[in-house]
């Protein structure tokens, strides 16, 4: 009888186990089927982002695959290297900053050999629409003002919003976001300065370029 075996102790167990088996099998298969595509799509996304901050003229390699992993403080930073003719012309990497209300802002920045900024783009943030979101390049060209800057241009005290005596505009009514962004970009440049050799794959000793 049907009802009989359903009342047995093992039936629920077998049922749940069976369903778990089925679903995990389905997911595993799906994972296996989609894994490659998803990775590919993600790489494409990454590439698209990276190309925003490193102009195509700087590289002829597949820059998403030419990476170096470094430690900065307690964080690991993955830097992508743009090579032309085998020589690293520029690198780009992610930095993050605390935005308004403790949310994190993540951006990528591209820096050329000389330590000059090629570009900065915010890739994710939770700033307030209409206030803090002027950091998006689609909303305002504010972020483009970093192009061509370097650690000494402006001099260190100028790396601040105007309200704090620096050279970068703040937004009306939102100082926190630009302030945090400026200081994150600055520390990003400092990171470059500190790890320049490793980043440019010119380590003679000690580093382990990949």
């Amino acid at each position: 009888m049907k009802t009989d075996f359903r009342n047995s102790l093992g039936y629920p167990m077998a049922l749940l186990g069976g369903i778990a088996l089925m679903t995990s099998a389905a997911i595993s298969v799906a994972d296996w089927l989609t894994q490659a595509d998803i990775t590919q799509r993600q790489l494409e996304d990454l590439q698209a982002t990276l190309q925003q901050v490193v102009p195509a003229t700087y590289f002829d390699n597949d820059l998403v695959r030419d990476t170096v992993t470094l430690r900065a403080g307690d964080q690991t930073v993955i830097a992508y290297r743009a090579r032309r003719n085998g020589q690293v012309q520029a690198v780009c990497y992610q930095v993050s900053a605390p935005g308004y209300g403790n949310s994190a802002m993540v951006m990528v920045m591209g820096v050329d050999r000389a330590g000059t900024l090629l570009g900065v783009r915010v890739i994710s943030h939770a700033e307030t629409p209409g206030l803090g979101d002027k950091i998006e390049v689609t909303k305002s060209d504010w972020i483009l003002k970093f192009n061509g800057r370097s650690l000494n241009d402006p001099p260190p005290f100028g790396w601040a919003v105007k309200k704090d005596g620096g050279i970068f505009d703040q937004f009306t009514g939102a100082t926190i976001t630009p302030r945090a962004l400026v200081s994150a970009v600055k520390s990003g440049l400092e990171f470059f300065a500190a790890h320049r050799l490793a980043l440019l794959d010119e380590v003679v000793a000690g580093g382990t370029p990949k």
Partner: protein
Amino acid sequence: MNPATFANIPHAHSQDSVPKLMGRVLLALLPATLYGVVLFGWPAFNLLAVTVLACLLGEAVCLWLAGRSVRLGMLDGSALLTGMLLALSLPPWAPWWIGAIGGAFAIVVGKGVFGGTGQNVFNPAMLARVMLLVSFPVQMTTWLDPHPWLSGSAPSFLEGLQVTFGHWAATDGVTGPTILGHIRTELGMNHALSQSVPGHYQSALAAVGWTGGSLGETAEILILLGGLWLLWRRAITWQIPVAMLVTVLLLASGFHWANPERFADPLLHLLSGSLMLGAFFIATDPVTSPLAPVGQIVFGIGCGALVYIIRTWGGYPEGIAFAVVLMNAATPLIDHYFRPRIYGRTWRGESRPIEKKSDEN
């Protein structure tokens, strides 16, 4: 059976009425309002007028929709008072639509949907202020240095209209931070207070009211006098203002004593921002504060603590409005748990045996 026979038990009533009560509060606000208008000129007057009109209009519409007598409903004066208090908490040169949206929101969402006067849970004026601050941070945080009426820097009537109703962009010449905002900015850059708040700036000027800030927060002394008058006329009770001020004072003293470079001194806390207005005129709104004296003390302490927390660690330089609205939310629970002891019962509501009392004596 003649229903009139049942009306009005008992057959004697105190002479107080709601319009009288509201009238007293309005009267107590008048000196500070006049001072604010004089200090900030025509634009301040325009904003006040727009805000109050928006409130009155909103009230009329709500009463009409609810099918009540518009005339009777308007006469109680609560919409007028809401409008006044809202205007007093706005930046004086804010554009007209700030006042209009705020006033309408205060009355319609803050009060109308709850069923009108007396039914609302949150303080309508502060709700509107919070809403405006959250929705229009730019306009709501552009503060102005004083431009007293007859002085050279005061805008003329036409310029006033231009400020309130036209396009006017704040220029650095006329705007300036309030003390609390200044402190926040300075602390944000890790400057110690002793550098950023020079001694003379501290309390004297703020107390006299020669400072930027919202319409109604500049004249602390006038507000305080108005509040004391209200206490004397028994329009408000002492529990909320005293509990609130004492809490801020104690917290500020404690932290200032522990680290004077990080935490502003207590007098500055008391005399800056809109603490006085909040303590005497806003937190005391009878509708949205607890009924019983015990509950009112808890409410006052809660407001004071939240004000201090938001001012010191929060994202906004001033916390009165948020503190009041948050405590409004807690008011029903306070009313539920902090009740007077019933005669002949213990605090928990059980019958109270006699012996205990003689022990206590």
